[in-house]
C-alpha cells in the first residue's frame, strides 16, 4: 500500500511539474517570438502620413517618409472624399480607378483585391497603404462584450479543468504502472527470501519478467547445488564416523578386557584404563562431529515431544553423580515449583545432549574437581536453565569464539561440545549465553520457549 501511494504521488507530482514546465516554456517562446518580430509588422503608417505634404496643389512625400514607406509597404494611394485617387506610389495597374463607398468599407477591414492594406484617415482623405498579395494575414475579431467580460472566469474554469484532467490522467497512469510493476516487486521480494518465481513473459514488462524468471531459476539451481554440497559433506562425515566405529570397538573391547586381566601389573592395568577412557572420548568426539555437521546443515530433524525438563535434568545429573562416586564433582540441582510443573515441547534426546555436554565440559576441564550447580525456573514464560561451576571457567578464546561465530566452519578452536549446545538451543528457538563468573567458574544460561511454535 505504501509503495502504491509513493508511485502514484510521485507520478502526479511529476505530471504537474511537466505541465508547468511546458506552460512556462510556451509562454517564454511566444514572448521571445513577439519580441523578435515586431519590426516586420508595418506600423509606421502615421509617420508616413505625416510626411505626405500638400505643396503647391501637389502631394509630395518627404525623403524620410519615402524611405519609411519603402521599408514597410509595396504601394500607396491617397483617396479624396469622393473616392478618387489624388496621389499614388507604385500602385498596381488593376487598382487605378475610383472607389465607391462600398469598396472602401470592404477593403478597410479586409483586403483590396487580395492585397493586404492598412488605412489611415486624414483631413483631406484616406491614405491607403498596401503590400503584395499573400504577404500579410489579416483578422478582425468581433465578440459580444458580455462574452469578453466572462473570458477571465472561462479561462479560470478552463485551467481548472485542464489541471483536473491532468491529475486524473496522472493518477490513472500511476495506478496502471503500479499494477504492471506489482508482480515484479512481489517477485523480487520472493527472490530475496529464496522463493522461486514465474512471471508471464508478455506485455510491457515481459523482458523484465523474463530476466526475473532467469534469475529465479539460477538462484534455485545454486541453492540446489549448495544443498547438495552440504549433504555430501554431511554424508561424508557420517560415513567416516561410521567407518571408525568398528575399529574403535575392537580397541575398546580389548582395552576393557585387559583392564580386567588380573595378571597385569598395576601400571599396565592403568594404561589399559587410559586406552579405554580415551577410546570412549574418541567415541564421544565422533558422535559430536556427526551431530554437529548434521545440525549445521539442517540434516537433523527435531523429534519433538512434550516432556518435563526437570525430570531430564535430574536424570542427567544422577547419571554423572553415579559415574563419579568419589564426590569429586557434586551436582546441586535447584528446580522451582513452577519449573517442576512445566512441560515443554522439544527434542528430548538433543536436550539431554545439551546437559551432558555442559556437565561433561565442567568435569573435563576441572580435573581437580568442582561443584556444578543447575538451576531451573520460569521467567517470563521462558524455561530458564542455568548451569554453572566453581572451576576455572572458559578460556578467553573459547568464550570469544562462542560469542562471535555461530557457524561451524569458522570454528578454529575446539569446543565442539559447546558448539553443539549452541546449535541445539538455536534449533529450538532458544537463547544460550556463555560467560565466566568473577569469583571463578563458568556459567551457561539457557532460555527455551515453553511452547514451541
Amino acid at each position: 500500500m505504501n509503495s502504491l501511494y509513493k508511485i502514484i504521488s510521485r507520478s502526479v507530482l511529476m505530471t504537474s511539474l511537466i505541465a508547468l514546465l511546458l506552460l512556462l516554456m510556451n509562454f517564454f517562446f511566444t514572448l521571445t517570438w513577439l519580441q523578435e518580430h515586431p519590426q516586420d509588422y508595418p506600423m509606421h503608417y502615421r509617420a508616413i502620413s505625416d510626411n505626405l505634404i500638400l505643396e503647391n496643389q501637389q502631394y509630395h512625400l518627404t525623403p524620410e517618409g519615402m524611405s519609411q514607406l519603402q521599408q514597410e509597404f509595396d504601394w500607396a494611394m491617397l483617396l479624396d472624399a469622393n473616392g478618387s485617387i489624388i496621389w499614388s506610389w507604385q500602385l498596381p495597374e488593376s487598382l487605378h480607378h475610383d472607389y465607391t463607398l462600398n469598396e472602401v468599407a470592404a477593403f478597410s477591414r479586409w483586403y483590396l483585391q487580395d492585397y493586404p492594406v492598412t488605412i489611415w484617415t486624414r483631413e483631406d482623405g484616406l491614405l491607403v497603404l498596401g503590400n503584395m498579395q499573400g504577404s500579410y494575414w489579416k483578422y478582425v475579431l468581433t465578440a459580444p462584450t458580455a462574452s469578453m467580460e466572462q473570458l477571465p472566469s472561462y479561462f479560470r474554469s478552463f485551467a481548472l479543468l485542464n489541471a483536473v484532467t491532468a491529475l486524473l490522467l496522472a493518477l490513472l497512469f500511476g495506478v496502471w504502472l503500479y499494477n504492471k510493476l506489482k508482480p515484479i516487486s512481489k517477485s523480487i521480494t520472493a527472490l530475496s527470501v529464496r522463493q522461486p518465481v514465474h512471471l508471464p513473459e508478455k506485455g510491457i514488462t515481459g523482458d523484465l519478467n523474463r530476466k526475473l524468471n532467469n534469475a529465479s531459476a539460477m538462484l534455485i539451481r545454486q541453492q540446489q547445488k549448495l544443498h547438495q554440497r552440504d549433504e555430501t559433506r554431511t554424508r561424508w562425515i557420517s560415513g567416516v564416523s561410521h567407518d571408525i566405529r568398528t575399529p574403535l570397538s575392537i580397541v575398546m573391547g580389548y582395552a576393557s578386557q585387559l583392564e580386567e586381566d588380573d595378571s597385569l601389573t598395576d601400571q599396565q592395568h592403568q594404561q589399559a584404563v587410559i586406552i579405554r577412557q580415551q577410546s570412549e572420548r574418541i567415541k564421544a568426539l565422533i558422535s559430536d562431529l556427526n551431530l554437529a555437521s548434521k545440525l549445521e546443515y539442517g540434516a537433523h530433524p527435531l523429534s519433538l515431544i512434550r516432556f518435563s525438563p526437570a525430570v531430564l535434568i535430574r536424570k542427567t545429573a544422577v547419571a554423572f553423580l553415579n559415574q563419579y562416586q568419589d564426590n569429586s564433582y557434586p551436582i546441586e540441582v535447584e528446580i522451582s515449583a513452577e519449573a517442576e510443573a512445566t512441560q515443554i515441547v522439544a527434542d528430548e534426546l538433543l536436550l539431554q545432549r545439551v546437559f551432558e555436554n555442559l556437565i561433561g565440559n565442567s568435569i573435563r576441564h576441572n580435573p581437580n574437581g568442582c561443584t556444578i550447580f543447575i538451576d531451573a525456573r520460569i521467567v517470563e514464560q521462558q524455561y530458564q536453565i542455568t548451569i554453572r561451576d566453581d572451576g576455572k571457567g572458559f578460556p578467553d578464546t573459547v568464550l570469544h569464539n562462542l560469542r562471535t561465530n555461530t557457524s561451524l566452519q569458522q570454528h578454529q578452536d575446539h569446543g565442539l561440545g559447546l558448539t553443539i549446545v549452541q546449535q541445539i538451543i538455536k534449533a529450538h528457538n532458544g537463547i544460550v549465553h556463555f560467560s565466566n563468573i568473577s569469583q571463578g567458574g563458568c556459567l551457561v544460561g539457557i532460555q527455551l520457549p515453553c511452547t514451541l511454535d
Partner: protein
Amino acid sequence: MQQLYTLKILLVDDNKELLQMIYNILIQAGFQNVTTASSCAQARQIFLRQPPDAAVLDIMLPDGDGFSLLQELQAQRDIPVLFLSAKDQDADRLQGLGLGADDYITKPFLPKELILRLTAVLRRTYRPILQEPKTEEETALGETIIHWGSGTITTANGQQTLTAKEFALLKKLWENQGNIVTTDSLCQAVWHDDAFGYENTLMVHIRRLREKIEPDPSHPQYLLTVRGLGYKLVRKASP
C-alpha cells in the same frame, strides 16, 4: 532344561577382527556355544544346520542388510536378536527395534555392556526353561535382613511386613544399590508416573520404609537422601 550359558549364540559381522573379539568376549563371559558368520549366506547355512537360540547381527553386511536378515531368520524360528551396528541414527535404531529386535547396541561398545544386554535378553526370553540359581533371596543391610521372597524384613525388633509400595521402592533402590535413583524413577517404579505431584507421597513412603529398615530413622545410614535429586541405598552404613 538348559543353563543360560549353554544357549547357542550366533554372531554375524563382516569384520573378522571384531567377530573374533566378540567371540572371545562371549567365551570369556562363559558362553559355551558361540558360532560366527561373516555374511548373510553363512548365517543362513548355520541357521539351518544348528539353529541358534539367539543372534547378534550387524546391519551392514557384504551380501545384504541385517534388517532383512532379521526378518528372514525370525520367519523360520522366533529367536531373540540383538543388533550391533555402527549406525547410530535414531531412525536406524527405531527401524531395528520396530522390526522386532530385542535390543540395539551401537558401536563402539564396551564388552560389559554387550554381555549385560545379551544376558538380559536371554533371561527374558528363556526364563521358563532356564535352570538358574535363584537370585539372592535375602539381603543384609547391617542388622536388617530383607527377605525378597516373602517381602518381609527382620530387624533386632523382630519381623515386619513391607507394603506393596514399600517393597517396590526398596526393590528399585536395591537394583541400583550404590547409585542414586531419581525421584522420577522411583515414582515410575511405584506409580508408573513422573514425580510431579507424587513427591510428598513418596516422602511419606520413604519415611515409613526408613522406620522399618533404619536403626535410627531420623539419621538414616542406608537409605540416603540426595537433595533435589532422589535417594540412594548403600550396603555399608554411611557415617
